[in-house]
């Protein structure tokens, strides 16, 4: 079945064959919230190493990779259905790429699709403030805020692909990139 695409469609089909891959699985360690932070810290440490010649560039690269990774992994851990979470990362053309694949249920799919529909007609920055205001009134879960922050404050480029799997499950593939400091000779 052809996946349904949102965001920058070319990004969804970007070839990440040369990427570094990590797989998170539920197991004896019980995949939990803290693994999001630990995994994104690890990715930030590893992927920002080429920038270590300049303290400023290193700080920027480490932070931006860490922030993007943390938000996407938090979402994958928070909304996942049983099954593995595949993480692919790489640096190409001065940008950090990340693709994360996991299974979600139809309720999570519907919430995300509503947000993505709204993004087609509104600026992420405007939608971010709107979401913050509504969270303050309704004690909302804050869900969607990470994606809006990435798009608005980090100028991330993103694509989402959904594919029906079985029963109530959908395969969600999120691809994102952020520009890294230009001064590096990577």
């Amino acid at each position, binding site marked *: 079945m052809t996946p349904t695409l949102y965001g920058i469609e070319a990004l969804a089909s970007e070839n990440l064959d040369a990427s570094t891959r990590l797989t998170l699985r539920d197991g004896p360690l019980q995949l939990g919230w803290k693994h999001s932070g630990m995994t994104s810290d690890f990715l930030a440490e590893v992927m920002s190493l080429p920038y270590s010649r300049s303290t400023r560039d290193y700080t920027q690269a480490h932070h931006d990779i860490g922030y993007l990774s943390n*938000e996407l992994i938090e979402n994958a851990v928070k909304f996942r259905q049983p099954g593995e979470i595949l993480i692919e990362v790489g640096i190409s053309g001065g940008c950090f790429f990340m693709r994360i694949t996991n299974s979600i249920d139809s309720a999570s799919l519907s919430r995300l699709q509503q947000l993505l529909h709204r993004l087609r007609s509104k600026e992420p920055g405007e939608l971010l403030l709107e979401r*913050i*205001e509504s*969270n303050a009134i309704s004690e909302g879960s804050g869900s969607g805020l990470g994606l809006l922050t990435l798009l608005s404050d980090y100028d991330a480029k993103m694509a989402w692909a959904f594919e029906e799997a079985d029963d109530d499950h959908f395969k969600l593939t999120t691809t994102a990139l952020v520009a890294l400091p230009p001064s590096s000779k990577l």
Partner: protein
Amino acid sequence: MEISDENFRVWTENTEVYFDGIFRLAGPDAYAPIHSMIVGLLHEGHKQVTFNLTGLEFLNSSGINLLAKLTIEARKMGELQLIVKGTNQYPWQAKSLPNLKKLHPLLDLRLA
């Protein structure tokens, strides 16, 4: 008053709230005790309250939601001056703290 875990510490000294470390809690429920502590301070009748974020290295989007909610709470109290002290040392602050100013134009944002 102080709330802390292995990654962060939040405490108040008179009318200043200090945030230190890494905020990566799971959502609004996990941030609720911190929210309650600071809302309590905002409602004590002070003329001015300061959020000192210069030690806050990293926060997730739920942490941003917490700061935004506290800013909106301060905005509702017309007579209260809110000062937010930040640092350019941690990249998230220059990227995301200006959003607080958009929520509350009278907020005094000091990024050094």
